[in-house]
């Protein structure tokens, strides 16, 4: 079964990895420490869309680690394959931590309740009962997702500025072709899973009105800034 997504058509420009380089990396991969990476224990598949454009949607493979019981950090790739492109990051926090965020920060975060209860967010390869024990927690969390590589518009390289992403919040948003493609490739049925997840609930007081781009939209813009002069720095430098 191929898990390769339709996004993976455009090859990253460059020569194939040389043997010497590959050998060196096999060596460094064995000798060096990779503790932060080794903390990553979970693969989660979901969908994101651009915070300024719901029509542009991306299949997002999250590789997540717990920083503690309330905070997770995820690397987002465009597929679960070895050749996957690193397209973004997501941070996930429980509700109390979300509530403590400044009000001008909250809109950058999105709720997870709908996509979890809807069955659209899943752990490939993990049996339902096990998956659900974690997802019932995820349903109550908020996430902040930033993408750096706009693979959905065919970019062969990570061009441009970071993009804020949002998640599904109700029926009718997710593109049917994307949904069907993922269901087929991973052998899952969102509709079936929805029934199993009916018992789950989102944040107890409901979804915060400032989350999900405060119900509007968000975009990023690049700005040139003046640099502070070096006068403040003194002493001997490297």
């Amino acid at each position: 079964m191929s898990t390769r997504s339709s996004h993976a058509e455009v090859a990253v420009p460059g020569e194939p990895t040389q043997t010497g380089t590959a050998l060196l990396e096999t060596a460094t991969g064995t000798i060096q420490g990779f503790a932060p990476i080794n903390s990553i224990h979970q693969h989660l598949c979901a969908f994101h869309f651009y915070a300024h454009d719901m029509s542009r949607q991306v299949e997002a493979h999250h590789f997540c680690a717990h920083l503690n019981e309330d905070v997770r950090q995820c690397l987002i790739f465009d597929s679960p394959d070895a050749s996957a492109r690193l397209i973004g990051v997501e941070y996930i926090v429980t509700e109390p931590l979300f509530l403590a965020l400044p009000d001008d920060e909250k809109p950058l975060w999105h709720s997870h309740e709908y996509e979890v209860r809807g069955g659209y967010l899943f752990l490939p390869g993990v049996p339902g009962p096990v998956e659900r024990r974690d997802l019932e927690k995820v349903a109550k969390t908020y996430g902040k997702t930033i993408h750096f590589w706009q693979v959905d518009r065919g970019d062969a390289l990570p061009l441009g500025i970071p993009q804020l992403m949002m998640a599904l919040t109700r029926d009718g948003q997710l593109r049917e072709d994307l949904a069907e493609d993922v269901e087929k490739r991973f052998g899952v049925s969102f509709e079936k899973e929805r029934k199993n997840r009916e018992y789950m609930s989102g944040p107890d007081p409901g979804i915060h009105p400032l989350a999900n781009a405060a119900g509007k939209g968000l975009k990023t813009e690049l700005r040139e800034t003046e640099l502070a002069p070096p006068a403040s720095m003194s002493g001997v430098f490297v």
Partner: protein
Amino acid sequence: MASSGEKAGPRTAVEGGEGGGGSLPPGRGTTVGSHVLDKGAAALQALRPVRQMKQHACSFALYAHDLARQVEAHHYAARLNQDFLQCAVYDSPDSAARLVGVEYIVSDRIFETLPPEEQKLWHSHAYEIKSGLWTNPGVPEMLQRPELANLAKTYGKFWCTWQVDRGDRLPLGAPALMMSPQAVDLGKVRPELVRRRDEKLGISTEDLRESRVEMEEPEWINPNADYWKQHGKGFAVDAVPTEMKRTAPFP
């Protein structure tokens, strides 16, 4: 408006106080239950893209909008081909390290194909490597040498999503563009940051620099990279409200 630049206004429980290093993220200790779930899932899931990260490099980065703000950065790099690496960047090499951003690294050949507007967001690596600031912990210098000579000719694009150096206990604001250390005053890394790193890793940046004196340098560095050097300007990213193009009701 949330910006990658400095935040004005009162601090909350999530924004830290002065000082570098930042404080721990808020939250309870990871429960046994979560550990078990994690391990269980990991046993069933291949996590292939993450297994491709086979190089750990430690270096320093400067905020593009404020070069005086400097951080130690631990890169975990996966190679997609001879000309391209993608890195998850953390603030330390420990298991509890915070994911602070992502860096992409391309060869000079690939860099030259980018439009000038894009090139401005990238930085060069030659100085960082030749000065000994960049090191691959645990790898004998001679073994690293060929790879370092290649990396010295590459360009990087580094977005920081968690500004731990200003004490943020959670990732706040829009992402910040980062730049690399350079040979001019504004681009130099503060000695105490280097000293602290060297002590932790048991290395000497000074010794590395000496041993790399003979290392090949790129003949030419594209002047669009390290934009602040030629133009005296930095970059910041702002997150601004806008009307979302919708295909269905939202939220």
